[in-house]
């Protein structure tokens, strides 16, 4: 399997990459880890005439603290995110979800920015980004803009990125209070992708009731989405099994479900509720523990 022909550029700065995107037009594509794009090119489902490699841009890599929160460079690999001590301490969900992506080879080369930009309906980071209310920093010809995760995933394989823009950084805002978070995933046994994945973040006060929560679902439908019905049902309630079970029943409200040879729509809908409950229970335990 051989991709269609293309010209290759390896810029060393984001500015240079944006300049190339503008000059080469919409037939040009950015290359990050290549673990979604290269298979598509081999299958000729994608045939960009120009490939702009982001791997030589040092400023896109790494994890740094930012304004009480943390900022993750788009070219940081899954395994760097998974094993980062800075993240593990306050955002353990990165370790948990990162370790569930594909296999070691995928995690060593695939990047968090590539995964978010690709907006794969079965990707893991989209759910994590939504549950943490991440802010996507995007550089384009007219400077930088910031898009909240809630507006970033537009449709299946479609993000809010314009063809001449580069996702540079994923900013994770600080969380106040007693916070718990969890990611629960039904892995496809062969690929590892999420048949259903649920990321949950809960904030509690001393009394053990839910002050705030965010729940995000991936794998089940055409794009990762917040389960706002579940969130509404849980806010102000005690973080116990009874309230969590009742709230999780609302997972999937208003969602379109995907069906394929592996899992039917009905099965995904069922899994969505089950995994929402598991993720909330685990998040509640970690907030109270």
């Amino acid at each position, binding site marked *: *399997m051989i991709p269609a022909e293309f010209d290759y550029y390896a810029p060393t700065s984001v500015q240079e990459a944006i300049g190339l995107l503008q000059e080469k037009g919409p037939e040009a594509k950015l*290359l990050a880890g290549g*673990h979604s794009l290269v298979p598509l*090119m*081999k299958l000729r489902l994608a045939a960009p005439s120009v490939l702009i490699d982001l791997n030589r841009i040092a400023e896109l890599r790494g994890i740094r603290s930012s304004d009480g929160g943390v900022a993750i460079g788009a070219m940081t690999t899954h395994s760097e995110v998974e094993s980062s001590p800075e993240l593990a301490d306050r955002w353990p969900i990165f370790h948990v979800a990162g370790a569930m992506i594909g296999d070691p080879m995928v995690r060593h080369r695939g990047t968090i920015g590539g995964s978010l930009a690709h907006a794969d309906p079965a990707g893991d980071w989209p759910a994590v980004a939504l549950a943490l209310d991440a802010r996507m920093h995007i550089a384009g010809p007219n400077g930088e803009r910031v898009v909240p995760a809630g507006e970033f995933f537009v449709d299946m394989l479609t993000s809010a990125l314009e063809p001449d823009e580069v996702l540079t950084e994923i900013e994770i805002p600080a969380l106040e209070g007693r916070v718990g978070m969890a990611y629960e995933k039904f892995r496809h046994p062969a690929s590892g992708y999420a048949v259903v994945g649920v990321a949950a973040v809960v904030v509690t006060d001393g009394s053990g009731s839910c002050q705030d929560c965010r729940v995000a679902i991936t794998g089940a439908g055409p794009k990762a989405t917040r389960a706002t019905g579940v969130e509404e049902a849980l806010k102000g309630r005690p973080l116990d099994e009874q309230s969590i079970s009742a709230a999780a029943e609302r997972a999937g409200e208003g969602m379109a479900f995907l069906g394929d040879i592996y899992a039917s729509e009905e099965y995904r809908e069922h899994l969505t509720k089950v995994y929402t409950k598991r993720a909330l229970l685990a998040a509640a335990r970690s907030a109270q523990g």
Partner: protein
Amino acid sequence: MATRETSKVPVNLDINGEQYDVLVEPRRTLLDCLREDLGLTGTKRVCDVGNCGACTVIADGRTGYSCLMLAVESEGLKITTIEGLAGEDGLHPVQQAFIQEDALQCGFCTPGQVLSVVSLLERNSDPSDEEIRLAVSGNLCRCGAYPKIFRAARTAAQIMSSK
């Protein structure tokens, strides 16, 4: 439609400690470059799309699927293939352990399995059974030699720690 003539580009690759200068099309994968341009056929091609692990190489200390890496993007990485493991004093301990434990049947997945175990043991000299299982989870073995592969990994860890 006129076919476009993509020119080949020069690439310098660091493979098993040796420098190779090759002229490749940008669409050439590292796997095809190793096998077709450099004659290093120890790295195997099976699925060609990142699903099986037969094409595993170690790049800057981390395993990767060479079928999803372009030769052009591999410039500057230190690549190790199965050909680079044996030294002057013979086979690498992981290779010895695979033979000792008979951890293969057809052998097609073996270069990838061995490299995944080498990469694991470089970072973790005493892995648990679960860590071994996860380390080779991207390397499919259609012959089902897993129990012996796990045993070989444990044996290799012992050989290496006794040195």
